[in-house]
C-alpha cells in the first residue's frame, strides 16, 4: 500500500480521445486496480486543460490531500506546463504531476477501441508508477551576466551587436578576418531594390567601430568556451596584427609602399590583388591593416621592412605576439555565416579549367565599382565585354550529388546579375534554372522586371559547359549543353561568359564551431535551431543563439531579422536578470564515486570535472543539459538524474507492463487494420 495519495485525471479531449478510448472505463479501472498503488480518486472529464478541468485538480489536491497527480491527456509537449501550473495552484509541487499521452500515442494512432483502452490503462499505470518515484523539485535559477558575445561580423552579427549595444549593454564582437562586413561587404548591389551594399552596410560598420558599448575584436578567434548560460567564460585569441593600433592612423602608406602583391582569395574572390600588409577593402572597420605573415618578405627573408621605415607614426611592430583574452558573457550569438559551394567539385561546368566561367562571388566583385575591374563586367582578360552570358542556377544546390537543399538566394542573385549585365553591357543573357523561386516581398516583381528587360530563361539543369565546338558559331565560345524541358529538346547555346550561381554551404569548420559551443548541426552542417518554426534563433543549448546563414541559407533581410531576433531574446534575459531552467540535471554521489573516470569524456557540454585530489568526479549543474548519458554510463550507479531517475524509469516499465501479469485482463485484439 502506497503512502502517497494519487489523483488520476483522464481527459476526453472532446471526442479526440473519448472517440476511441473508453475514458470512463480507464478512470474506473485506475480507481480500482491501482487503488493499492495509492490512487484515491480517478476522474474523467471533457477537457482537462480547460479552466474547469484545472480547477478540478487544484480542488482535489486541497480537499483530498493529493500528493501526486497523473493526467492522461495529450502530449506533455503541449500541456505539461498547464497541468504543472494547476498543481502549483492547488499547493502541490508542480513536478509531482505526470502528464501521460493517450491522445497522440493512443487515440489518434489506433482504431481498435478495446486495444486502445487497454493500452491507455497501461500508459496510466506507467504514469502512476513513475510519479510515485518522483521527488519535489524546484526550477534552477541562474543569474545572467549582462555582456554578450557575438561571433561573426557579417550583417547578421553586426545587427545583433548593434541592437544589444544600443539597448545599453556591452557586446564583444569577434571576427576572424581583419575587418567586419562579411560577405555583404563584397557585394555591389543588393536585390531586389538594387541598393548599393556598401552604402547601407558601411554606416552600420562605422557604428560598431565607434559604439561605446562594443568591443570589436577583429583578426581574432574564439578558442574555448567554458561555463553556461548567464555565465560563460570565453577565451579569444587576438592574432598579432604586427600593427600597433594605438599608433596607426589608417593612412594606408604601408599598403601603398609594400612591395609584395598577393592574390586576394578571400575578399576579391581571387580576382584581384592585395599587399602583404593590407586592409581587405577601403571602408574596412577597423581601419588598421594587418601584416600577412605568410606572405611578408621580412618574415620570409629577414629584410625589406619597407612598411616599418615608411610608417609616419612608427606603428609597425614585427615582434607583436598573439594575445589571449578572457571574456565574461551571459549569452552568445553565433553568426559565422557560410562558405560558397566550390564549383570545382562539379567538373562538368568547367570552373577553374575554362577561363570565362565565373562564380557568383567573382561576378559580385566584377560588378563592384571598388572591385578589381572598377565595376566593368568583362571576361577574364580584363578588357572584353561579353556579348552573350549564361547564368547557371542551382550549382551545388538541389543536387543529390552535392547538397539537396535550395540555397534560397541564388535565383534572386542571378536575376540581379542578369539585370546588371543588361544594364551595363546590353549582352544577351540566359538564365538556366530548375524552378524560379522568388517568394519574398517585391522579389517576384523584380523577376517580372528582368523578364521584361528581355533576359532569356531556359528551364533545365545544364549538363555541361564546354569549349569543344561542334557546330558553326561555337568556335571560341563556351557552349552550354542543356535540356530545355519546356521546349522538350536538347540545346547547345554558345556564350562568352558563364556565371555559376554557386550555392551556400556551411562553413568548412561549422562542425568544430558547433562542438566548441556545445550545440548541434544538422547532417548538412547547418547549426540546429531549437525549433524550426517557433524558436528559430535559439539553440538547444541555453544561452547560445544563432543568426544568419550559420542556421541555413538566407538573404540579407532574413539575416538582419535573425540578428535582431537573437538580440531581442538576449535583451529580455538581461532585463530579467536571471533565467529559470528545468531541473533536469545529473549529479554525482561522491561517496559512491570511485573516480574510475568512465564518465569523464562523455559530456559534450564539459559539465563533468574530475578532481584528481579527491579522486571523484563532479557534475556542474549549471553546465549539465540533462541528457542523462552519464547516468546511464556510470558503472557504480553513482550518478543520478532528476526527472528521469533510474527509479522512475524502472517503475514506469513495470507500470506499463502491469497488465501483462494480470491474466484475466489478457484481451486478445485482432491485429488492427493499419491505415489502409
Amino acid at each position, binding site marked *: 500500500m502506497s503512502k502517497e495519495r494519487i489523483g488520476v485525471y483522464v481527459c476526453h479531449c472532446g471526442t479526440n480521445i473519448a472517440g476511441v478510448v473508453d475514458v470512463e472505463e480507464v478512470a474506473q479501472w485506475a480507481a480500482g486496480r491501482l487503488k493499492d498503488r495509492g490512487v484515491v480518486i480517478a476522474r474523467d472529464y471533457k477537457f482537462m486543460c480547460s479552466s474547469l478541468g484545472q480547477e478540478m485538480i487544484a480542488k482535489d489536491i486541497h480537499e483530498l490531500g493529493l500528493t501526486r497527480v497523473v493526467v492522461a491527456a495529450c502530449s506533455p509537449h503541449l500541456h505539461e506546463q498547464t497541468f504543472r501550473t494547476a498543481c502549483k495552484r492547488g499547493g502541490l509541487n508542480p513536478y509531482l504531476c505526470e502528464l501521460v499521452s493517450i491522445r497522440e500515442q493512443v487515440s489518434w494512432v489506433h482504431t481498435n477501441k478495446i486495444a486502445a483502452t487497454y493500452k491507455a490503462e497501461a500508459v496510466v499505470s506507467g504514469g502512476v508508477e513513475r510519479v510515485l518515484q518522483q521527488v519535489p523539485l524546484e526550477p534552477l535559477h541562474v543569474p545572467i551576466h549582462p555582456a554578450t558575445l557575438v561571433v561573426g561580423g557579417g550583417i547578421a552579427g553586426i545587427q545583433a551587436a548593434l541592437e544589444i549595444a544600443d539597448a545599453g549593454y556591452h557586446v564583444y564582437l569577434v571576427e576572424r578576418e581583419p575587418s567586419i562586413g562579411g560577405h555583404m561587404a563584397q557585394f555591389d548591389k543588393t536585390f531586389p531594390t538594387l541598393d548599393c551594399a556598401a552604402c547601407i552596410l558601411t554606416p552600420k560598420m562605422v557604428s560598431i567601430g565607434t559604439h561605446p558599448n562594443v568591443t570589436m575584436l577583429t583578426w581574432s578567434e574564439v578558442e574555448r568556451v567554458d561555463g553556461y548560460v548567464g555565465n560563460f567564460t570565453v577565451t579569444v585569441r587576438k592574432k598579432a596584427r604586427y600593427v600597433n593600433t594605438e599608433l596607426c592612423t589608417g593612412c594606408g602608406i604601408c599598403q601603398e609602399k609594400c612591395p609584395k602583391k598577393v592574390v586576394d582569395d578571400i575578399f576579391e574572390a581571387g580576382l584581384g590583388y592585395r599587399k602583404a600588409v593590407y586592409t581587405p577593402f577601403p571602408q574596412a572597420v577597423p581601419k588598421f591593416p594587418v601584416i600577412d605573415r605568410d606572405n611578408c618578405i621580412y618574415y620570409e627573408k629577414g629584410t625589406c621592412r619597407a612598411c616599418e621605415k615608411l610608417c609616419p607614426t612608427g606603428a609597425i611592430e614585427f615582434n607583436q605576439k598573439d594575445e589571449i583574452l578572457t571574456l565574461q558573457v551571459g549569452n552568445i550569438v553565433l553568426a559565422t555565416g557560410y562558405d560558397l559551394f566550390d564549383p570545382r567539385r562539379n567538373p562538368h561546368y568547367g570552373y577553374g579549367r575554362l577561363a570565362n566561367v565565373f562564380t557568383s562571388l567573382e561576378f559580385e566583385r566584377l560588378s563592384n565599382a571598388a572591385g578589381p575591374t572598377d565595376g566593368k563586367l568583362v571576361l577574364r582578360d580584363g578588357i572584353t565585354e561579353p556579348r552573350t552570358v549564361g547564368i547557371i542556377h542551382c550549382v551545388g544546390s538541389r543536387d543529390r550529388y552535392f547538397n539537396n537543399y535550395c540555397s534560397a538566394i541564388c535565383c534572386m542573385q542571378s536575376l540581379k546579375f542578369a539585370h546588371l549585365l543588361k544594364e551595363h553591357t546590353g549582352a544577351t543573357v540566359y538564365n538556366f534554372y530548375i524552378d524560379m523561386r522568388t517568394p519574398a516581398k517585391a522579389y517576384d516583381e523584380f523577376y517580372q522586371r528582368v523578364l521584361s528587360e528581355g533576359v532569356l530563361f531556359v528551364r533545365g539543369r545544364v549538363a555541361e559547359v564546354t569549349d569543344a565546338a561542334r557546330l558553326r558559331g561555337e568556335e571560341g565560345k563556351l557552349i552550354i549543353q542543356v535540356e530545355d524541358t519546356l521546349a522538350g529538346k536538347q540545346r547547345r547555346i554558345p556564350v562568352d561568359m558563364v556565371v555559376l550561381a554557386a550555392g551556400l554551404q556551411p562553413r568548412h569548420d561549422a562542425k568544430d564551431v558547433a562542438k566548441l559551443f556545445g550545440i548541434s548541426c544538422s547532417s548538412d552542417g547547418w547549426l540546429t535551431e531549437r525549433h524550426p518554426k517557433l524558436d528559430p534563433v535559439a539553440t538547444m543549448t541555453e544561452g547560445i543563439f544563432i543568426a544568419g546563414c550559420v542556421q541555413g541559407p538566407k538573404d540579407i533581410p532574413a539575416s538582419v531579422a535573425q540578428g535582431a531576433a537573437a538580440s531581442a531574446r538576449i535583451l529580455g534575459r538581461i532585463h530579467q536578470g536571471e533565467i529559470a531552467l528545468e531541473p533536469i540535471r545529473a549529479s554525482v554521489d561522491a561517496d559512491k564515486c570511485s573516480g574510475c573516470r568512465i564518465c569523464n569524456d*562523455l559530456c559534450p557540454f564539459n559539465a563533468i570535472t574530475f578532481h584528481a585530489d579527491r579522486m571523484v568526479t563532479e557534475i556542474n549543474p549549471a553546465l549539465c543539459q540533462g541528457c542523462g548519458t552519464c547516468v*546511464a554510463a556510470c558503472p557504480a550507479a553513482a550518478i543520478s538524474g532528476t526527472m528521469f531517475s533510474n527509479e522512475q524509469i524502472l517503475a514506469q516499465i513495470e507500470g506499463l507492463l502491469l497488465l501483462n501479469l494480470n491474466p484475466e485482463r489478457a484481451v486478445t485484439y485482432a491485429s488492427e487494420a493499419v491505415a489502409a
Partner: protein
Amino acid sequence: MTSNPDGNPNGKPKFAMCWAASCGGCEIAVLNIHEKILDVDQNFEVVFWPVAMDAKYKDVEAMPDGSITLTLFNGSIRNDENEHMAHLLRRKSKILVAFGSCACEGCIPGLANFSTTQEIFDAAYAGISTDNPNGIRPQSAWDAPEGTLHLPKFYPVLKTLDQVVPVDYYMPGCPPESHQIGAVIDLVIQALHGEATLPPPGAVIGAGQSTVCDECPRARNVKKITHFARIQDALIDPALCLLEQGVLCNGIATRSGCTALCPKAGAACVGCYGPAEGVLDYGARLMTAVASVIDSTDPAEINRILDSLPDPAGAFYRFNLAGSLLRAGKAAWAADRVKA
C-alpha cells in the same frame, strides 16, 4: 552485559554456517580470520557447521524456530537439498546472511544458467577429463537391491539464496575477505552487547559503498577503448588502469571492500564483490560503461572492436548471472518450465 544478551536463558547466542552449492572457499575464509575465531567461540555457541564439526540436519530440524541468532549461508541453490536447507535455516535463524558471492548472486556456479542441464551433465559426466565408460548420469532416485536411494534433485536454473527465502544481509566476495569477515563478526558481537546497531535489513555488509577503483592504486585517465586485450596478450603498464590498456577490468562496476587485491597483483578485477550499492543489474552496468567509452562512432568499427571481446555475457555476468534481471539463458528457463 550478561552472557545472554539476546535473552537466551540457556547460554550463548547460537551460530550456524551452511554450505550449499559452492566451492567451500567461504568456509576457509571464515577459518582464515585467525585468532578472531576465538571471539566467535567465546560469544557464540556453534550449533551447525558441517565443515567444522559434526551435525545432522535433523538436529537443526529439532531446534525451535528462530533459535539460531546468526546463520552464514554460503553457496547458491542448485538442487532441492540446497533449497531445503535454505528454508530450514531461514526458519530457525534470526539473522540469515547470504554469505559470499554464490549465495548473494550465484557466482561461478550461476554461469551454468547459460546452459541446459543436459549440457551441464555432458560437461561433468562425459567430458574428456571424465572416466565414465558406462555413461552414468545422476538420478534423483535409484532403486538398489537394498532399497531406493535418493540424490538431491538438480534444478535447471540455479537460484540465489534470496530467490528462495528472504535474506537479512548480504556479504559479497568470492570469498569474502577475512578482514571484512572479522569486522562483521565484531559488529555483530558489539550489537549483541548493545554497543552497536546493525544496519537496516537488506543491507550489504562487509564491503564498501563504492567500487574497486576506489581502492585501486593504478593511475587513470579519461577512457577511450579501441580494442580489448587479454592480459597475457598485452604489454601491461603496471601503474596504469587496466581498462585503459584494453583489459576488461570489472573493477569499475564491482563493489569495493576487497582492497583491490587483483588489480594490485596485476590481474584484472573479475567482479566477485558484485554490484555497487543501488545497482539492479551488475552486467548491465559494466556493459553500459564499457560500451560508452568505445572510441568510435562507426557501427562497423564498433563491431570490429567488440569482436575482440568474444564472450561479453560471460565477462559481464561472471559472478552475477543468477542474480541478474534475466537470471538465466532462454534454454535453461525452457528446461525449468518443463520441470514445472
